[in-house]
């Protein structure tokens, strides 16, 4: 896990190493200063002359300046390193997600990916910064200070033998107890925030049932329980301060009492040493405190790191061919005894025993209830998923042998859950063909029956689409998505329930346009409405992952029960048209 993340440092290795160097420099000097000062104090006491004081003082001032420069530079380099590290982590995650196949994407919800790229990266960045700033500095400071204290204080330093273990044990105990408590609380806290979100989202229900007071009471209870847990956890952590204070005071009292005795008895301790011991004592205790903080922080962010690495280690499960076929000859499609399931562990095949042959230029309709695997069937054609058994061929060649970009360039698919991106209509359309001229854009839109309404917008083709395409209606969005797919000039066009929000008249116009203007393109249309497929050259009725029947409208009406039922329901049973 750490190894994988460490790879993200890359070009910021210099900044990282420089940070460490500067910080070591700062730490060394900080440890030296009290040492030299003590010497100075003693010399002053011994009645040194001005020259000596100035020389010693000048040296000290120089050291402090170096330390200042080191500290300042370290501040810059460590910010650079940590911001850069975070950037690279985000970059790697994003790149990896771009390499994901559909089945990889299915594993992670989009909101969880967003959290990983924001909150989790942020946590890891903070830890990284903390790590390079203090993880070296604190142990160094600790060691230096202990060594210096022994060199200088001699016997006086024995007090650390007493204090340090007390502090270490105390800090360990506290973080041991506090960490699980915090982890529990944070989970609970997340849940509380989720419940607030739930409440905000459901406000119409809350108010509709006049449940304001009930919600207040419910929230009050949950908040109180969290408050109790939080307080308990924080009170454990709050013990840190008195513990630290105790150690510091112990050190002070010990040095004063023992030190003064030793000084007076003349056993090699002088006043300067007493002063230095107090300073070192402080440094030792502070560095231990910092270490315990890092320990807590690292363990807390370990979960974030885990979640990030999970994405980075997710391998795209599709292999690219070594000698890819670069051209799709025509729009013929063949399914040879295809079985398909979404994951290895799935018990049931989503598609079973599919044997299907579609000639180039045909119009094919697919009908079937929810869960009959209509979408699964067509998703195998542009190789969004790989068939588990059997093979899918496009233009006579197995889809696994194509260069994937070429294949998907020739097979345009309008997904059921389709999206426009923020940007102008033009920009969105050019996803289909980055080099399309304005005329080509308009032509595609005319074919998709979108030109009229686009022109009716004040800004026409330069109208901004908001995130998620919320400022165009469902039917308009669907037609723009079709136009976008048409711009690829595909050999195969797949519409996965892509006209459900378009009225029947427009729907019919779109299909008529297809017949007239793109006769060579193979068109596959998945639809809920019989009207959308009844004039197709071939209609496939899907049921529970299998092909129930293949044929033309009239044949199916006579022979296929499912088709009959759907037809009945739509013409008589429910009456009229659906407008969704």
């Amino acid at each position: 896990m750490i190894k994988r993340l460490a790879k993200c440092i890359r070009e910021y290795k210099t900044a990282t190493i420089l940070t460490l160097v500067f910080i070591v420099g700062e730490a060394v000097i900080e440890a030296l200063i009290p040492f030299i000062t003590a010497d100075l104090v003693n010399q002053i006491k011994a009645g040194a002359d001005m020259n000596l004081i100035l020389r010693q003082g000048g040296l000290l001032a120089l050291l402090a300046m170096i330390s200042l420069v080191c500290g300042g530079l370290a501040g810059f380099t460590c910010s650079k390193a940590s911001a850069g590290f975070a950037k690279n982590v985000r970059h790697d995650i994003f790149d990896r997600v771009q390499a994901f196949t559909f089945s990889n994407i299915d594993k992670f919800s989009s909101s969880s990916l967003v959290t990983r790229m924001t909150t989790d990266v942020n946590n890891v960045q903070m830890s990284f910064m903390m790590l390079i700033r203090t993880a070296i500095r604190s142990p160094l400071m600790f060691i230096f200070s202990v060594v210096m204290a022994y060199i200088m204080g001699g016997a006086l330093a024995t007090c650390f033998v007493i204090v340090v273990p007390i502090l270490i044990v105390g800090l360990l105990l506290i973080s041991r107890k506090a960490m699980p408590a915090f982890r529990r609380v944070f989970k609970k806290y997340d849940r509380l925030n989720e419940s607030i979100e739930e409440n905000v989202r459901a406000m119409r229900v809350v108010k509709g049932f006049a449940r304001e007071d009930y919600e207040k009471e419910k929230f009050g209870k949950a908040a109180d329980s969290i408050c109790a847990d939080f307080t308990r956890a924080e009170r454990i952590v709050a013990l840190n301060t008195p513990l630290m204070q105790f150690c510091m005071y112990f050190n002070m009292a010990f040095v004063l009492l023992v030190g003064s005795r030793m000084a007076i008895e003349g056993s090699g301790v002088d006043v300067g040493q007493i002063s230095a011991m107090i300073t070192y004592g402080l440094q030792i205790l502070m560095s231990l405190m910092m270490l315990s903080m890092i320990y807590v922080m690292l363990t807390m962010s370990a979960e974030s790191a885990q979640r990030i690495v999970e994405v980075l280690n997710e391998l795209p499960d599709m292999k690219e061919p070594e000698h890819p076929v670069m051209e799709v000859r025509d729009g013929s499609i063949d399914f040879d005894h295809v079985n398909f399931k979404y994951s290895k562990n799935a018990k049931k095949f989503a598609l079973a025993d599919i044997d299907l042959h579609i000639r180039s230029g045909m119009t094919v309709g697919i009908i079937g209830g929810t869960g009959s695997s209509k979408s699964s069937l067509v998703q195998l054609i542009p190789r969004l998923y790989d068939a588990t058994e059997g093979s899918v061929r496009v233009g006579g060649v197995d889809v696994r042998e194509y260069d994937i970009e070429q294949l998907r360039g020739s097979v345009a698919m309008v997904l059921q859950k389709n999206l426009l991106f923020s940007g102008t209509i033009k920009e969105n359309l050019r996803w289909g063909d980055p080099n399309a001229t304005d005329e080509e854009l308009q032509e595609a839109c005319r074919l998709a029956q979108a030109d009229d309404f686009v022109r009716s917008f004040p800004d026409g083709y330069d109208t901004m689409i908001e995130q998620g395409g919320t400022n165009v209606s469902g039917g308009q969005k669907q037609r723009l998505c079709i136009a976008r797919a048409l711009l690829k000039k595909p050999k195969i066009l797949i519409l996965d329930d892509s006209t459900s929000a378009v009225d029947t008249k427009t729907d019919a116009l779109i299909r008529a346009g297809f017949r007239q203007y793109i006769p060579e393109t193979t068109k596959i249309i998945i639809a809920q409405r019989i009207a959308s497929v009844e004039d197709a050259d071939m209609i496939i009725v899907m049921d529970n992952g299998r092909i129930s029947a293949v044929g033309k409208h009239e044949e199916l009406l006579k022979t296929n029960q499912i088709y009959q039922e759907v037809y009945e329901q739509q013409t008589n049973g429910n009456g009229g048209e659906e407008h969704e």
Partner: protein
Amino acid sequence: MNNKQTETEVRSMNKQPQMAGRKRKINGGVLKRLMGMLFHYYPVMLPLSIFCIIFTAVASSIPNIFLQQVIAEIEEFQNSGMGWEAAKDVIVPKVLLLIGFYVLSIISITVESQLMAVITQGFLDRLRKTMFGGMQDLPIKYFDTHKHGDIMSYYTNDIDTLRMLVSQVMPTLIRAGVIVLSVFFIMIYYSIWMTLVLMVGVALMVLVSKKVGGGSARYFLRMQKSVAVQEGFVQEMMNGQKVIKVFCHEEACKSDFKKINDALCEDAYLANAHANVLGPVIMNIGNLMYVILAMVGGLFLVLDAPNFSLSGMAFEISIIIPFLNMTKQFTGNINQVSQQINSIVMAMAGAERIFGLMDEQPETDDGYVTLVNAKVAPDGTITETEEHTGKWAWKHPHQADGTITYTPLQGDVRMFDVDFGYEEGKTVLHNVTVYAEPGQKVAFVGATGAGKTTITNLINRFYDIADGKIRYDGININKIRKSDLRRSLGIVLQDTNLFTGTVMDNIRYGKLDATDEECIAAAKLAGADDFISRMPDGYQTQLTNNGANLSQGQRQLIAIARAAVADPPVMILDEATSSIDTRTEAIVQKGMDALMKGRTVFVIAHRLSTVRNSDVIMVLDHGRIIERGSHEKLIAEKGQYYQLYTGAFELE
């Protein structure tokens, strides 16, 4: 809605850099109010803990005096050549006294830190509850005009900034302030000359903190904006990942992301660099001061310069050593204060936003007509009763003569010439007149934005009408207490919202005192019992994340059961079945039909099959009713409805 958001964004954007710029005098009103709340909630604990903070702070500057005295003694005894035995009697009591101080100080710091943990969490808890409670009472308009993400950030980010303020910033400032002050006095007690030298360094520190700290706050706010941009982009791309794949658009996305990512990195670098540089610089200026003072002290001593101090003490080594320690303390505390600048700026911005939420105008309710359980005598007179009779009546006290009349609850809703606009000057409903007699089914048909949902928003008073009148059982709905009005209206919406909890809890939401049997009966009525009892845990199945483990149709059925258990005389079904496929709808429809029986129902649907059997169908266009009548009548008229029905016209 969007205008409003950008407006608030712009407002907060303008405000924050401004605040960062004049960080020394942060919006006093906010701070005062915050402190007022804290003291109000904790009138004893807070002063006690502040007392403890001050005591600890003072106590931590006392050792300097002892240090000075002990060292002076050591000097003396060393010079006089007397042994430890003699010195013991002088030094040991001093040290013991010091230890006594320490014990007190540790006790006080323990009390303080424990109290602060309680106060911080307790304060946040109360704040959360106040915010949440206030939010429940806000009108629907507030939720329609604010992004949910923005509302959530009050509870997450803004509360967090306050946690920092109360638990960290406040104690640090008090403690550091007191220490700096008391150390300062001890210093001038010993030597004014040396104190003056130190003050030069302190001035430098303040200057640096102001410069660097201010920059840091400014860049932090800029970074926050970059973070938001990045988050928006990532969100959009992660949602559209499958579309990206289908169009082989990965490389273009990567390069777009690279730009945004680089910008964020740059801003994060600048913000962090400012914050990270400040600490070491201040600390090392402190080190420098330490060295300089050691030198100056040494020089004074060597030169035998006259001391100038409150105590009148002469320069001695016993002054210089504690003075050096105090220098460390002094600069260390100034460093701590400078580290808090960011937190203060953020906390003030957070507090201001939170107060903004708390100060939102709650939904007003002047209604005085209430809904009561009724007993109907054989002669038709109605009397109020405590127990649940299954019959309800409107209790209408007349202010003019002090009498009370009871009107039976029937579900007769009439709107006369209603005009309405969500925003001043933009009328979205014009002259809408609707009569719905008890038991009738009234349908609204029309394009998105035609005003269908708006009409239902007016009936349950989510919004108040601008002109015209609405009568419920003959009573002006403005006179009816809102909670009672809404209790008599059941709603099922297109977006089903279920709550975390069991299926049973969710159904019971419609009527909190419903028994299990009543809930199951309602589920049966709605046609939901079937699938619920087939789930492994039946009615005790836990629902999370808005019932993510259920299908859309199943969620819809639970929502219908929830409305059914409330047993209201009037129902509003707003696109209740639109996201269900035809096959499931056939099942849901049965439940709906059972539910609608004997109630006044307002139906909004895209699917004309759902509305066909209504008593009256209203076709709305741009806020006006353009056609009204039964299905047969409207078909015969061959107008807008006919076109819709035959599919020649698009409904979106």
